[in-house]
């Protein structure tokens, strides 16, 4: 029997998800023995015709990381969907939009203006910005289209499973690979990490008072962080209650609060809204003005509560006159 074909592909991402695979360390050799990796790590031939030449569904599973930001990425993932039996959204960006999804507070023009015109080191008196098609000394060069909006993977193609995390921890990656190899797959659409909140597993949960209440919000750099006490009990925003577990509380082990990279549990549609409701239930002031005062100490609610999931929020992006609904 021939070994199952496996592919890896990346979109708008940082390369950390590839490192997460490499971090399987000695286990990587077992994986390489069990499968035939057809694209990876520098995903070999991306000429569309070569992939098109493969029979449909001939790749057993394709792991795709990164959000969708460019036309080329959309074209490639659609092609890979056609050629693959299973698609796994690998890591926060493919799963939720991730940090690059924070660009949904802006549009293409503002991003280009910033990058190519107004940054203080940029010297660009002619106001040149990269073009999808340009002729240089008679030579025609092309670049993919840069969309106004960042998408998570399943907003572009059908996705079978999700591996959460920025980046996904090695044990979850290994579990997922084993499940696929052994054909012990959970129902389609499953996020491959336990469906409970981070707080349920957090060591600091014991230090959380029975009725958690706070009167003001502290930023991590403003106070000495207690290495054992629940961050919310210290008045520090920790996304734990609105975040799925499975990461091993890695940030918390380094004495820093959670920022929600695993996304919410199955019961929650919108991670930021969930966290807002958590906050509403623990802020211990009743006077409207006092509430406002507390809320003012949360300096960037949207960018914090949706740090990894803005394209997955109900709003998906900031509404701007320059961008029509669902426009790319």
């Amino acid at each position, binding site marked *: 029997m021939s070994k199952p074909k496996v592919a890896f592909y990346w979109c708008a991402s*940082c390369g950390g998800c590839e490192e997460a695979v490499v971090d399987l360390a000695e286990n990587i050799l077992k994986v390489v023995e069990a499968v035939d990796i057809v694209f990876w790590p520098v995903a070999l031939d991306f000429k569309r015709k070569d992939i098109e030449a493969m029979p449909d569904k001939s790749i057993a599973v394709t792991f795709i990381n990164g959000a969708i930001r460019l036309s*080329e990425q959309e074209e490639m993932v659609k092609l890979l969907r056609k050629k693959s039996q299973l698609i796994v959204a690998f890591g926060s960006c493919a799963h939720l939009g991730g940090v690059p999804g924070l660009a949904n507070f802006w549009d293409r023009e503002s991003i280009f203006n910033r990058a190519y015109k107004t940054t*203080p080191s940029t010297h660009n008196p002619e106001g040149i910005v990269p073009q999808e098609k340009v002729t240089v000394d008679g030579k025609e060069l092309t670049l993919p289209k840069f969309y106004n909006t960042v998408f998570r993977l399943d907003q572009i193609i059908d996705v079978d499973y999700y591996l959460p995390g920025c980046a996904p921890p090695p044990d979850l990656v290994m579990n997922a690979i084993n499940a696929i190899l052994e054909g012990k797959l959970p129902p389609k659409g499953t996020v491959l990490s336990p469906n409970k909140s981070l707080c349920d597993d957090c060591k600091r949960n014991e230090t959380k008072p029975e009725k958690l209440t706070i009167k003001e919000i502290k930023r991590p*750099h403003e106070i000495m962080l207690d290495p054992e006490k629940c961050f919310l009990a210290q008045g520090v925003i920790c996304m734990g209650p609105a975040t799925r577990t499975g990461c091993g509380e890695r940030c*918390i082990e380094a004495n820093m609060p959670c920022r929600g990279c695993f996304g919410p549990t199955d019961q929650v549609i919108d991670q930021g809204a969930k966290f807002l409701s958590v906050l509403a239930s623990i802020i211990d002031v009743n006077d409207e003005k006092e509430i406002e005062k507390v809320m003012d100490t949360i300096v960037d609610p949207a960018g914090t509560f949706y740090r990894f999931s803005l394209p997955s929020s109900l709003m998906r992006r900031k509404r701007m006159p320059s961008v029509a609904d669902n426009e790319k």
Partner: protein
Amino acid sequence: MSNNRITIDPITRLEGHGKIEIFLDEKGNVDKAFLQIPELRGFEQFAVGRPAEEMPRITPRICGVCPTAHHMASTKALDDLFKVEPTPVAKKIREFIYSTFMLEDHTLHFFFLGGPDFVVGPQAPAAERNILGVLNKVGLEIGKKVIEIRKQCRDIISYLGGKVIHPVCGLPGGVSKGLTEEDRKKFLEVAKAGVEFAQFALKIFDDIVLKNKEYVDIVTGDVYYHRTYYMGLVDENNKVNFYDGYIRVVDPNGKEYAKFKCQDYLNHIAEHVEPWSYIKFPYLKNVGWKGFVDGEDSGIYRVAPLARLNASDGMATPLAQEAYEKMYETLGGKPAHNTLAFHWARLIEALYAAERMVELLEDKEITDPNIRNIPTETPKEGIGVVEAPRGTLIHHYKTDDRGILTEANLIVATVNNAAAINMSIRRAAEKLIKNGNVSDGILNMVEMAFRAYDPCHACATHSLPGDMPLIINIYDADRKLIHQFKRNVK
């Protein structure tokens, strides 16, 4: 004018993909060559509105291969922003984490990515020119050593930084987690093993490359050669430093051209925009942008290992200094303009990083619990710098009174080399493609021109096949495909 066109589509990584376009003239010689980077994510824009203290947790997502570099540059920018001096032990912990990261990243590059060209050989069959080929040549035991040292280093970063892919421990004025005496002892073992390992890597380079005349000729030949300016961080003695110091620039003759604090970078560095790539092209502002040319009159400079060594007066640790002297002796003096010597310099830096880990851990003060100073000043503007494995990395933030970002500017390591990489590819292509003749062998030779820089687009080849898949398409004047060369493409 002929429309002959060669597309090398390595579809590499990190800042997305890299694509090389080579245009031939009517005689079939190289007319123009471009490395295009078709990816942009817009960090400088979407950083605006975010709280400054979150930047060390947001900006590492620029690069998951060197997140520790972004994390440190960002954290140092916060020290400057809040005008808070980190405690002495916090500085040591940061530099220790950073040295661990440099050791891990550099040795890995040698064995997995750049090394195969030499260890197995530039002319070796493509199927062997990868980490597995390296293991065949040097033995599986060494392969296990590489995996082991990498894992130990990455475990240290995970322990202190939370996650090795995107650490979280940096705060203005300090770090979130300290070391116990037990940690110190345990890490010291790793550091000592690191010194041994780095020496061993240099010995492999010595045995396999330096004792082979053919390789030495390639390293010192003119295909991979550019006379440029060089930039790197140096300490008060002009010795290479990864974590802090002055940015020093030397001219193509090795003479100091500029030396400045990172806060002055805007007086020295400017970025040029081309309509055909999403990447920008930094250059020395006071020399000026003269196009993709080398020499004294062109503001193009290079960064990363060889550039750092060229821009310094030596290494701050004894074994690395010894190796530094040997390299320049072999290459015929300083500065060395041989692009492939980046590989050699990288190993010397790995040795320095390991020696520095030992130094920092032998200092018992590193277990001092006083790991943070709390900022009290009103923030306004902050700039931070480190030497990333791939070059000088600058983060620059402006904020309102509450510390919310109003502006961000980033000079990212590989970007500094963008213009030089373009030149290197063009030069290699010009030297190797004659009268329209393109052989399979040219693929790796062109590839070697940019792999020496360890550009971030190639970072992910830190994994199994260390060999970049390439396609070269040759089109005739009617843009019809007349030849196709493939390597490592299934």
